[in-house]
């Protein structure tokens, strides 16, 4: 009754075709190593790319003079939120 659909036969056939092999196969180990390498490279990329963006924007902001302390200490006249964009970005 339950065998009307040839699940077991098909399952056996498909189980032999997992991408690059099954449990503990060389293909699986290689895919694992490649995945871990991609993961680690992503971390390095996140750090480097963000660092570049932040350093560039901080330099632009400093160069703009918008954040400089006024000549007369204690007098602050800024009335709007500071927005400075990098013209080269």
């Amino acid at each position, binding site marked *: 009754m339950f065998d009307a659909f040839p699940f077991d036969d098909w399952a056996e056939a498909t189980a032999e075709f997992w991408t690059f092999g099954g449990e503990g196969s060389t293909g699986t180990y290689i895919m694992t190593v490649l995945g871990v390498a991609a993961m680690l490279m992503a971390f390095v990329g996140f750090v480097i790319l963000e660092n570049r963006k*932040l350093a560039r924007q901080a330099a632009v902001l400093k160069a703009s003079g918008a*954040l400089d302390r006024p000549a007369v200490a204690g007098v602050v006249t800024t009335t709007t939120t500071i927005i400075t964009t990098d013209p080269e970005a």
Partner: protein
Amino acid sequence: MTVSLVTSLLAQAPTPEELQEQISLDSQILTEQFYFYTVVVMWLIHVGFMAYEGGASRRKNVMSTAMKNILTIAVVTPTFYYFGWYIYGCFEEGWPKDGHDSPTVEGLDFLVGFCQNTAPWAAQMGPNLSDHVSAVFFLAFLLFSWTTASIMSGAVIERIRLSAFLILAALLGSAVWIMDAAWGWSSGGWLVTRFGFHDSIASLVVHGVAGAFALGVLLNLGPRIGKYRHDGLARSFRGHNTHLTLMGLLLIFTGFYGFYAACLVIQSTTFPGWLNIYGSPTTLGAIAFVITIGFAGGFTGGWFASKGDPFWTLSGGLAGVISVSAGADIYHPSLAYLLAISGGMVAVWSGNYIEKKLRIDDAVGAVAVHGVCGFYGVLLVGIFAGGFPTGVNQVESSFGGQLMGMLAFLPLAFLPGYVASWILKKFNLLRVPPEVELEGLDLAEFGQDFFPEFERVPEIVIEPDGREVESAPVLLEAYWQTSTNGRAETPVGTGERS
């Protein structure tokens, strides 16, 4: 003719063995579906955290805040797949003393070899027609991992580097919390089998640990520019959309029902009914009682302790649930209600203490709500549920056992957070430059304002005496007092008093 028909029908009828096999398969598939849909519901926790933190941030930081939550998924998922799940499978006894055959705990024969099944090259960690449960069980734990990272996420908004956060999120989500889960949130965990440690729905193992980790990070990260005055008194930054924050909290609450359900074990042909993570019998209804009345109690406690503050009222609901989660499989609803009221109050009081006395700038009160109440919840089990036979070897829960878990998990969580953030700080990779923080992270990270159709109005800061003043002069004054490497002059955790 008749005989031949009956014979033919009998020949087609399934044998008892075939029926048993089919029922077993159906049971596994139902379990598979159950965990799958808990994962779907748990996604709402992360939608909620994103909305909650986005609303609590100032307009200039909204997208950088949201991006943290989104990229949490990008880093915690692969790290948890490649080594997080392996830690859970192998370190239940503290150390995998029997290698890949671990854990080998008496009475837990069904767990033998769980370690080797969690390696990324194991048959259970890929497409497997003979295993319907392992993959979805892994996914449920993965969602718990995202949650721990999201808990830390809110505390550090508006000044942490995205990349630093992602490194810390991977450490917390794929190493720290899952190690404590192996020790105290598994049927073979050494804290469970030796001390009867009981934290059934993860007060401490998820919330408390994430809060303690966040505290370690905050000590190195420092407060946002302008958060504290020279005399040490705290200013408040007004989030750009409180409604979004409150909606986010409600989404988190919705997701919590999936979280609670995923903390239980069900498979009808293997176990007689619902089990908690330790293998002790319970019901889905019992924990649904506690979570719902826990929210009610938490809202009430939070409302009264904060004198009706909307943010703390809703955070009180979260704190209330966290406070009763450890004993959610045991507590009577009335007891849970009372304990949750106290939890909501503890969150408000401890949140104010952390902000105003310790002078630690936790932007959303995560250390108080998750950290303090997570530890509080486990302590409550020692007081109100001592003697409960926990786990398969039925070690009685006790105040001492709960204390043992707290003493193990506090350093396990706090130290990695503190040390990792200290290292990032030494390399100047923890915090954004002060100029960028002042201008807002969104322009530096993404080069755009995310509300272009709305007029930009002056940002407001609330002084300790309740006065609302324009923030630009206040923040510039604070900026001028910062050193060039971005570290605030006011020492974190002490505050400078004139």
